[in-house]
């Protein structure tokens, strides 16, 4: 039963990840990424990490990919026709195959025997949070600081360049109109 679930969701993950890297339309690629993330979340639950599975859906599928979609729509990206550099695909595919061979060989030799059975303590949220807030408290706080820095950086990086008359911080204030920007101009060469 567990093998069946693994095979189904592994197949879905591989199939949708192929769509992500192949499809010409960015919106379709993004939606396939959502499907991939969902399958990986199910695999996390199978591996005894249900909290991570829920977090994967909440953070990755529910926030990060939505951000991608917003940017795609804001920049009005169209399907591009000549998507791939000529010849680049062959080299990259060969490289990926070599990588897959090497890593596959390493991985195939490890973990052949069955893993130890899942204990209630391993799966429980209490154990995870106890470890998070005792042994890993410092990385936790640093990650909080990192997220603050990222928010400030993203806000500053995405603002319009301030006009010569305006000050630096006034460009961070919200504008009065909240319609979708008409940033779609004719592409200049």
């Amino acid at each position, binding site marked *: 039963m567990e093998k069946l679930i693994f095979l189904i969701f592994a197949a879905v993950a591989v199939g949708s990840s192929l769509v992500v890297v192949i499809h010409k339309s960015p919106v379709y690629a993004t939606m396939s990424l959502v499907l991939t993330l969902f399958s*990986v979340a199910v695999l996390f639950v199978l591996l005894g990490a249900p909290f*991570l599975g829920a977090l994967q859906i909440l953070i990755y599928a529910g926030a990060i990919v939505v951000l991608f979609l917003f940017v795609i729509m804001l*920049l009005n990206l169209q399907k*591009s026709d000549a998507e*791939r550099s000529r010849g680049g695909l062959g080299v990259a595919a060969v490289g990926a195959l070599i990588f897959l061979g090497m890593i596959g060989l390493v991985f195939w030799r490890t973990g052949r025997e069955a893993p130890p059975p899942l204990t209630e303590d391993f799966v429980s949220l209490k154990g995870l949070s106890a470890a998070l807030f005792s042994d890993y408290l410092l990385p936790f706080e640093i990650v909080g600081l990192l997220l603050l820095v*990222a928010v400030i950086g993203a806000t500053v*990086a*995405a603002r319009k360049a301030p006009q010569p008359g305006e000050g630096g911080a006034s460009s961070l204030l919200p504008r009065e109109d909240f319609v979708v920007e008409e940033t779609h101009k004719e592409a200049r060469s």
Partner: protein
Amino acid sequence: MTVPISWYLMLAALLFAIGTVGALTRRNGISIFLSIELMLNAANLTLVAFSRQMGDRTGQLIVFFVMAVAAAEAAVGLALFIAVFRSRHTIDVNRLNLMGK
């Protein structure tokens, strides 16, 4: 009946390889970014699989931090894309070339 861990590791390696091909061959900046997210997910899967094998929760905690860092990276990266698009009106990485033609 339990799935051996090597299956998960092979799947993660496959996803990583697919993501690498995508990141190396796409011209659209956003598509490269999507492939990078795919690679990060493959790494997360490997970490959780090994955490299950060892019976040690460290792997899961590292995944927790990786997710947070990936969110931060996505936000800043997309803000940079918006900034680049404003001035160059394209995010085709072959055309975002200031150093020589």
